[in-house]
């Protein structure tokens, strides 16, 4: 093992300093980055499933829209940092409108929400192809270079991604657990009819919660845009992982999504370190199967 790790050791020079690039440390940092990305993408999925019981198969496309927002902001000559709040606002509005026009009509039919959001995902991808074509677009990394940390050099932008994603996740969690809005959401989850009878406009809260779920995905899309190609299929990369997180962490408590992201990221990072990416996917799926088979009996209902 020591020999294997020694094989992975590399040396690099930056501003005259010498850093040992340890493969394990790099993979741990990659794991933290993976955790942050999984958490922010899955959080929106968890909110929508926990509150409304809607399995949103178009959630990956919300990530895709966020990535294209980042691309368009770049094309407009604006800062990438502006793209993040713009993506949040665009997806908040888009999510709210989708809830109003489509989801609201089929709450009582869970199987229809799966079909409807699957159809919506196709429509959004086709729209992206019509507007941007299938060509790969790139968003320039706003913070190129690497930063030394824990004895390794690690891409600076990935640190920024982790910081922004964790901030968005924490703020979203606090919004849903500590604010008056969060209390109304908990009331709706507990008893929708009683919430209505207390004067809570459940339809408005639903639209807002769906919008917030979409907005977190949009922020995720804008954040990951500089890391790879922006293209209509980009959302499909993130959707399976997000579902895996929701399955492992559950939505009975929203913090469970964060826990699930941590578990999935740790398992995948470990599997990649000791084997390869294919085994990481297999282990992750096995983990989901085990959780579904032996996990908690109650997997619905969103509670802080």
């Amino acid at each position, binding site marked *: 093992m020591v020999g294997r790790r020694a094989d992975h050791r590399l040396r690099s020079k930056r501003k005259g300093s010498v850093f040992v690039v340890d493969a394990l440390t790099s993979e741990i940092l990659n794991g933290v980055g993976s955790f942050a990305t999984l958490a922010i993408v899955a959080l929106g999925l968890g909110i929508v499933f926990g509150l409304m019981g809607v399995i949103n198969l178009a959630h990956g496309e919300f990530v895709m829209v966020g990535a294209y927002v980042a691309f368009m902001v770049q094309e407009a000559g604006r800062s990438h940092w502006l793209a993040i709040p713009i993506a949040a606002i665009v997806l908040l509005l888009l999510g709210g409108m989708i809830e109003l026009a489509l989801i609201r009509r089929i709450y009582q039919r869970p199987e229809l929400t799966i079909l409807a959001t699957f159809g919506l995902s196709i429509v959004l991808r086709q729209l992206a192809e019509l507007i941007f074509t299938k060509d790969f677009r790139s968003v320039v990394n706003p913070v190129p270079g690497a930063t030394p940390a824990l004895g390794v050099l690690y891409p600076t932008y990935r640190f920024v991604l982790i910081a922004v994603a964790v901030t968005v996740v924490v703020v979203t969690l606090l919004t849903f657990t500590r604010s*008056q809005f969060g*209390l*109304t959401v*908990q*009331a709706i989850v*507990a*008893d929708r*009819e*009683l*919430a*209505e*009878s*207390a*004067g*809570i*406009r*459940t*339809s408005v809260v639903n639209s807002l919660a769906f919008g917030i779920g979409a907005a977190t995905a949009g922020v995720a899309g804008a954040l990951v845009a500089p890391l790879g190609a922006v293209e209509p299929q980009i959302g499909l990369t993130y959707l399976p992982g997000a579902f895996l997180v929701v399955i492992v962490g559950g939505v009975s408590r929203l913090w469970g999504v964060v826990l699930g992201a941590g578990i999935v990221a740790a398992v995948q990072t470990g599997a990649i370190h000791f084997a390869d990416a294919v085994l990481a996917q297999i282990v992750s799926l096995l983990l989901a199967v085990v959780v579904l088979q032996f996990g908690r009996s109650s997997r619905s209902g969103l*509670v802080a």
Partner: protein
Amino acid sequence: MRLQATGLEAGYGAVPALHGVSVSVEQGEIVAIVGRNGVGKTTLIKALMGLLPATSGSVRLGGNDVTRWPPSRRVRAGLRAVYQERAVFSELTVRDNLRLNGLDASAQADVLEMFPDSLIGRDQQRAGTLSGGEQKMLASGCALRAGASILVMDEPTEGLQPSNVDLLGKHLSQARDDGLGVILVEQHLALATSLATRFVVLEKGEVVASGHADEPDIHERIATHLVI
């Protein structure tokens, strides 16, 4: 303000439970809805609040036709409810229940003080850990302090100790005198007769008798319909 149901029909799926029920209440009066179990009293409360859609007839509140309004809109128009089952958010704390009903700090304290032996000092407790009667007291207190003009209540004394039944009766009487209109579904006939200004008797989803509390034979007429 007046709550007026006219020719109201509602039910569960294809099974109708109300057949053209007409009932009304003005601010400052208490209308007791009485009848044996399963005659449609709870269905009437749900239909008045909008939890069950009216298949026919209308509900008017303060001059507005609210028949198609969702419950939350009726609440904003001045209507409140206390339900027989699921009266409070059992997974949330007593304090959260008070906040969810839109009560400010002063009104929240008022609710706890309305039933001091049962609620004071328990605001951080999960509402679901209260007894059934205590949950009813919490729900009734919230509804009475929420600033409503009309209140519909379904068996609010169920599970209450006799002393708390008297206390609730006192609060309802005070609220009526302060201008609150109440539709009261109540099995506790002694309480109903002591508070009500009018009576409506339901049988098989229909109004079979009604009258004012000051009519000399009103109690006999009610009793006739309640004898099994």
